[in-house]
């Protein structure tokens, strides 16, 4: 195969969606190409239209979308191609993997069936030949114990393994081009590194081209050779990875590059009063058991975690999904039944019921991860922000509450006029500001922030981090900051706790932990987060 050959060519593609408010132009005339065997990244924030281009080329647009322009694969025009002829190319020569490994496999069928069915349909193989091929593919993507995995159902696999299965399915018909649409966004950093390493290795072995769509610049830098930067449906800048990262010419690219969280927080002095003291907190989840029987199954989500929060301090809790960090945050606030001893300003609050906790709730606030889920869709922003006041200051009049809402919205940098709108009219970043306003309006002393920036684009993330910093300075707030994102924790926290499977693996002042991590687990996390290029160069071993 001639490696310089241009195999995939997108010319002046426009994607328009018909909405009740008139046509929305998601992509406005984009030119792109992929050469055989190369890795091209498309970078942009959410809504830049990067995924929609790929959907359009694969004929997967939503029913109200239209694509115009030209997409050619080895001289064959794809736009407007009848479904049957398109199917000969998509799924065979051009394949795609998606963001959500949890939902892109059918839960009712075994892995074997899911992999072998497309091979039988596209390649015309017999059932036994397809099975052999499926096994081969699972070995290719380094799934441990592939014979046994063939018989597994998707729910028996971890997220990383499922994404490997998806990749195996994409490779089944020896594609020329693999389109990867944020394939690692839903995965933990260490697993993300493994998947990327696998993709790089497979590319070397099979010689296919990869078109990688992502919002994460660190991945691009480590993984791609050429980059397209997209904004609002247009390509802002294109060039080699080296050029884009070291010699960006456009303001938007520069802004994206500068959006990495930066700065650090100096630790509070040892004499500062202790606000919150959690001693040997454990949380056990039990499931199963019916009306008449005791529970059948127990899961220790958090085990014996001790933590001391001083006034003005920010404790960062880091860990991968399933490490129990969010559970710990909720247990400290007594939102979950837990064991141990939690003391707030000298008062033990452990095990208090709803009514007993109420006086302390105003001081112990929480901001949740998902800005789309944490705001009730049927309440206006003003109502959402002032709900806490209804509970803690029932004497306030409606007018006073409204004034409080206006002040809180100004505090978080939103226009107070917006208080009569509903949450779905806001972007993710704005919603997270609203969630923060809801916490701040009560003038708390402690806020537990549960992954408040994880669902946001880097540039918005940076704004939220700055906002949190500003609020901490002006009100002397203390934060417990839960995140899987080491870069954000490094920027915001002065003390870091690393958790794994419900236990504390390592803790210490942020600066120390990041400079000289003691445990292997922390070191692996650091490598995957800050030194992806290095990780991708190492040979792959079979695990996920």
């Amino acid at each position: 195969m001639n490696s310089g050959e241009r195999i995939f060519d997108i010319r002046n593609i426009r994607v328009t969606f018909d909405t009740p408010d008139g046509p929305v132009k998601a992509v406005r005339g984009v030119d792109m190409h992929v050469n055989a065997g190369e890795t091209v990244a498309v970078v942009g924030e959410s809504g830049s239209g990067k995924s929609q281009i790929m959907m359009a080329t694969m004929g997967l647009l939503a029913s109200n979308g239209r694509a115009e322009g030209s997409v050619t694969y080895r001289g064959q025009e794809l736009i407007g191609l009848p479904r049957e002829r398109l199917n000969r190319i998509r799924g065979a020569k051009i394949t795609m993997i998606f963001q959500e490994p949890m939902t892109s496999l059918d839960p009712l069928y075994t892995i074997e069936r899911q992999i072998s069915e497309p091979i039988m349909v596209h390649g015309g193989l017999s059932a036994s030949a397809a099975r052999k091929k499926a096994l081969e593919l699972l070995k290719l993507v380094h799934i441990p114990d592939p014979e046994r995995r063939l018989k597994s159902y998707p729910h028996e696999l971890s997220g990383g393994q499922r994404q490997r299965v998806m990749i195996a399915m994409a490779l089944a018909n020896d594609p020329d081009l693999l389109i990867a649409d944020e394939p690692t966004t839903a995965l933990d950093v260490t697993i993300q590194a493994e998947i990327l390493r696998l993709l790089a290795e497979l590319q070397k072995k099979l010689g296919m081209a990869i078109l990688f769509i992502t919002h994460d610049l660190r991945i691009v830098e480590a993984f791609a050779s050429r980059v397209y930067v997209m904004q609002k449906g247009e390509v802002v800048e294109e060039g080699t990875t080296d050029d884009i990262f070291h010699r960006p010419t456009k303001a938007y690219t520069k802004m994206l590059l500068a959006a990495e969280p930066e700065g650090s927080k100096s630790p509070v002095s040892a004499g500062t009063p202790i606000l919150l003291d959690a001693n040997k907190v454990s949380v056990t989840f039990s499931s199963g058991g019916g009306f008449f029987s005791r529970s059948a199954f127990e899961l220790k989500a958090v085990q014996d975690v001790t933590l001391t929060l001083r006034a003005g301090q920010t404790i960062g809790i880091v860990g991968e999904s399933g490490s129990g960090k969010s559970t710990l945050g909720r247990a400290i606030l007594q939102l979950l039944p837990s064991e141990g001893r939690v003391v707030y300003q000298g008062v033990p609050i452990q095990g208090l019921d709803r009514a007993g906790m109420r006086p302390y709730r105003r001081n112990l606030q929480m901001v949740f991860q998902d800005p789309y889920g944490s705001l009730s869709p049927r309440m206006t922003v003003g109502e959402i922000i002032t709900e806490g006041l209804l509970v803690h200051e029932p004497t306030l009049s409606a007018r006073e509450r409204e004034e409080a809402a206006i002040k809180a919205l100004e505090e978080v940098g939103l226009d107070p006029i917006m208080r009569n709108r509903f949450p779905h009219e806001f972007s993710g970043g704005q919603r997270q500001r609203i969630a923060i306003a809801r916490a701040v309006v009560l003038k708390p002393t402690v806020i537990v922030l549960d992954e408040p920036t994880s669902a946001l684009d880097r540039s918005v993330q940076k704004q939220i981090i700055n906002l949190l910093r500003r609020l901490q300075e002006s009100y002397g707030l203390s934060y417990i900051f839960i995140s899987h994102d080491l870069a954000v924790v490094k920027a915001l926290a002065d003390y870091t706790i690393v958790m794994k499977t419900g236990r504390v693996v390592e803790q210490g002042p942020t600066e120390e932990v990041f400079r000289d991590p003691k445990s292997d687990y922390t070191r692996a996390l650091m490598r995957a987060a800050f030194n992806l290029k290095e990780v991708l160069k190492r040979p792959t071993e079979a695990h996920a």
Partner: protein
Amino acid sequence: MTDIATNTPEVAAGAPVKGRSLWATAMMRLRRNKAAMASLVILVVYILAGLFGPMISPHHYATVYPDYVRVPASLEAYPREDEIVPQAENVLARTRLDINSIEVDGNTLRVEASSEREIDPRVTRYLDRSDIFSNARITETSADGRSVVMEADVERLRFIFGTDGNGRDLLARILISIRISLMIGALATGVALIIGVAWGATAGFLGGRVDNVMMRVVDILYALPFTFFAILLVVFFGRNVVLMFIAVGAVEWLDMARIVRGQTISLRRREFVQAAEALGVSSGGILRRHIIPNTLGPVIIYMTLLIPKVILLESFLSFLGLGVQEPLTSLGVLISEGARNMRSAPYMLLYPSIALTLLLFALNFLGDGLRDALDPKDR
């Protein structure tokens, strides 16, 4: 500092831009659904007909016209013109006058008569004695008194849907039965709504053992045969429509409770409920402000589907003879009467059936339309 710029992804994703609540969006989607909009119009017509129809209808639903039993539906007025004249001739024959002409002009009968002798003005009494003429009078008398022009009012009635076996106007009865059916539908659904939402939301929100006990109660009530329950009620409380349908509502809330409970359980795990808990909002407050408003979509859909169910149920009960009492009537009663007279008077079955079918279609289409409008993900 504000990140208004990030609003663009919303636009690109095709989401509404501004100033539009969930309900407004749903309404907009509904408006494009022609069947649902037509149903809405029909429903409004029905409600108006149920409210004002019996007031403006020319006949009272309980008035009996013994002369016009099972008169077929027609636009013509009764008695017919060709029946009036022979009747008049018949009556006037006894006056022993020479009848020169008999004319029917709308609601008046005009008779010119003459005689050899002078005519006694009391001849009009002969006309008055007949059932169909009233207020007979002499309008003109010739100078010699030997010829007169008499006029009498003829009561002419229109029964455009015909009359039933007792001689009552079917249109008036259909109008009153629409009122009864809609009232019963609204009443029973209202009761089901209140009990079902409160029960389901409480069970789902509290969870655990409370939920278990509450839902087993629902299961037990489910197992009760409905017709048996209805007969028991009639035995104990007599035939009282309102009571009956409060009772029907008290049975129909079971489905509602299950739907709301399911919704509540999924809502309870949503972050905004946890956020409210973290704010210290009491259970009641969470239920009132967060859970119940968010279950409204499915609840409203179920409601539009429950109303026809209840109306049908009432028809069924009335058909069995357990429903409303004479002279009040309902669509079910009318249909059951119509079915008995199907051969002799098919219109007695036809019109009430059309009325019921239209109503049920309208409610069902509207329910479907609302479901699509409120839950676009399903499509």
